[in-house]
């Protein structure tokens, strides 16, 4: 056949293939279907742990559904399932409480995979909507939240995201609440922390999505306000190789002067993060300056056994520190209980991802909102949720929301990678940042 025709065909099929690949990612099976169901239970409900049995009279049991629009494939393939599990645990605990109280009400969840993409998030919400769901925990990413804002509003569905912190989804009066403090607080926090470390010139390497660009802009703005210089590099995180971007960062550091007054802020996710760190650790210039990161850099992916120890050693060498929305101290009985129950149920500590804690709190708030409303109505949920949140103190602290519906108490843990005495690596808290006072407290040096 004519080679030209082949070429055109090849290109078309290439695009087609990419499309197919995109759509065909496996979605986790939905846990159940149906919105609000009224089920007449005629069998005896046996109470676990109690000596007696529940009265055998038939109870009119009411089930409220909470949708979990949480990505478990794509960029969140690793962290997504953990967060989903956090939410599931909360719903189960609420149900246990209701059962013990003899209440006829139960919560039930339906999970839909948002695939870490805007289209995936909309598709997931559409599925939940057609199942009649009006209260949703999720989606995770800011780009996903932003994509579904209109859909939520038109269909009167209230959502609470366990992990979106980007500015792109910061909208007044929307139906999307956010459990962590948004980047509006993290941007200044990072700028202040970095500035207070004596850094005057900052190179920012950020992934090309709403989260990365939004946070990079915020840090840049605040850092310049403090009097610093900024060179911002936005890289395409979908590329197989990022050495050209690392090279740019290296150049920028060189221009600023590779000294104690220059720093690098990396805003990455799992695989793009490793690609950058692997290339950076072999770059003599980049190893000379200090590195910083936001919450997304505090992932187990960057430490052994998930990645090479060389990367962890590099992070330690450049005195890496990352901010992460503060999770209550482990001495807090609430936090302790959550960690124990989660570990028992899922065989892994929730500490692998901070946002598992937020997913747990978000699901509790969602559940309580539904129960308090006592009617399954998205508009009512939207009115009630901020009030419930204001009176809620969870494993991630006080959930007072600001005028945008986002957590308003910006307290961040400052963490650094450490090799623990048992030979494992982990990010350990080395300080705190209080957004209300802009005070950085370090208990140990990074």
């Amino acid at each position, binding site marked *: *056949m004519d*080679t*030209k025709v*082949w*070429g*055109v*065909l*090849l*290109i078309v*099929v*290439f695009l*087609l*293939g990419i499309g*197919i*690949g995109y759509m*065909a*990612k*496996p979605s986790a099976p939905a846990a159940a279907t149906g919105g609000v169901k009224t089920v007449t239970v005629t069998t005896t409900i046996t109470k676990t742990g109690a000596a007696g049995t529940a009265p055998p009279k038939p109870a009119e049991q009411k089930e409220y559904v909470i949708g979990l629009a949480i990505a478990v*494939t794509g960029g969140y*393939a*690793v962290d997504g*399932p953990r967060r989903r599990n956090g939410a599931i645990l909360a719903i189960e605990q609420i149900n246990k409480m209701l059962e013990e109280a003899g209440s006829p009400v139960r919560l039930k969840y339906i999970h839909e995979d948002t695939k870490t993409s805007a289209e995936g998030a909309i598709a997931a919400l559409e599925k939940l909507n057609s199942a009649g769901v009006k209260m949703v925990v999720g989606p995770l990413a800011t780009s996903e939240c932003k994509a579904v804002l209109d859909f939520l509003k038109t269909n009167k569905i209230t959502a609470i995201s366990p992990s979106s912190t980007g500015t792109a989804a910061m909208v007044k009066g929307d139906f999307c609440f956010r459990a962590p403090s948004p980047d509006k607080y993290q941007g200044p926090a990072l700028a202040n922390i970095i500035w207070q470390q004596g850094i005057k010139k900052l190179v920012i390497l950020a992934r*090309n999505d709403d989260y990365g660009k939004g946070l990079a802009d915020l840090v840049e703005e605040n850092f310049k306000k403090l009097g610093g210089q900024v060179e911002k*590099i*936005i*890289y*395409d995180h*979908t*590329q*197989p*190789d990022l*050495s*050209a*971007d690392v*090279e*740019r960062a*290296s*150049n920028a550091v*060189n221009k600023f002067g590779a000294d104690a007054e220059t720093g690098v802020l990396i805003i990455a996710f*799992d*695989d793009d993060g*490793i*690609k950058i760190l*692997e290339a950076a650790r*072999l*770059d*003599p*210039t980049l190893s000379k300056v200090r590195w910083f990161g936001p919450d997304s850099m505090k992932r187990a*992916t960057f430490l052994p*056994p*998930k*990645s*090479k*120890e*060389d*990367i962890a050693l590099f992070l330690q060498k450049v005195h890496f520190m990352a901010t992460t929305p503060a999770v209550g101290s482990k001495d807090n009985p609430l936090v302790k209980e959550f960690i124990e129950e989660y570990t028992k149920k899922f065989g892994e500590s929730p500490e692998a991802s901070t946002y598992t804690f937020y997913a747990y709190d978000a699901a509790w708030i969602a559940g309580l909102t539904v129960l308090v409303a006592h009617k399954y109505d998205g508009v009512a949920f939207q009115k009630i949720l901020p009030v419930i949140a204001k009176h809620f103190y969870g494993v991630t602290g006080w959930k007072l929301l600001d005028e945008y519906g986002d957590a308003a108490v910006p307290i961040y843990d400052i963490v650094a990678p450490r090799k623990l005495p048992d030979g494992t690596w982990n990010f350990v808290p080395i300080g705190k940042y209080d957004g209300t006072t802009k005070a950085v407290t370090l208990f140990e040096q990074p």
Partner: protein
Amino acid sequence: MDISVPLMNSLTLGSLYTLMALGLTMSFSVTKIANFAHAELVTLGGYVTALLVNWMGFGLAESLVAAFFASALLALAMDELVFKPLTRRGSRTLYLLVASIGIGLIVRYILYIYADLNGIITIQTKADIQIVSQVGRAAITTMHLWIFPVTIISVILLHVMFHYTKVGKALRAMADNEDLARVSGIRIYRLRRIMWVIAGGITGVAGGLWSAYSVLTPEAGWQALLRIFAASILGGLVSFWGTIAGGIIIGLAENLGISIANEFFYVNTAYRPLVSFIIIVVVFLFKPTGLAGIDVIGWIKRKMGKGE
């Protein structure tokens, strides 16, 4: 502007893309299948290497050998289970291409499921990579001492095989005209199997090196496929030397090219994939035979002949 670092990156990536593309060039020229599942041969080789090194404590060399055989086996299975039966039934190349996309998806998501269950969706082969020397600002690492020799040796071996052994010549004959090859008594199905083993194997080794150089996800091969095709197409889809040149050109265009464009014209480095894409389109429009169609040696000889 110091070009040592982008130059080094270009050569490294170019070599890796070459190594990945050699198998594609080989299987395309012999079977005429534009095999999109080639991406999965890369990924599988990567995972085999990563798991053997990280979990079983094998050395990189042994693991790469294992990766060779794993991907060779996968390539063989693809052909025996799908391509060969379809070809025998007289399927057109377009159907084979679509089938290859299907195989790719299946293998990719099996890998996804496996990786998910084992918590290794992102994994990096824990090869000990250290800096051994420095050229300008660019570091030469132990990884380079793997990547460059493996690529060069692979190309030389393939060249020797295809031009100086009976099997290799028969493969070229098969690539030229399958019916005539059969008429000459060449057992094409046996040769085809040999071809898939070698093509798959080399690709697996490339995946293994990639997993140590960069990071691996079940999509790693798929993400690199555009470059692999670009390198192969630049080489005219039939020539190994063309493929090397193609791989290096892609590497240079995506690193040095974009660095220069960024330095002087402020082009965002995020536009890198566009470079590969443009190369594919331009080659198909203006020079469908790729670099293989350019007779460099002949040209040099003519020039030298004239000079004498």
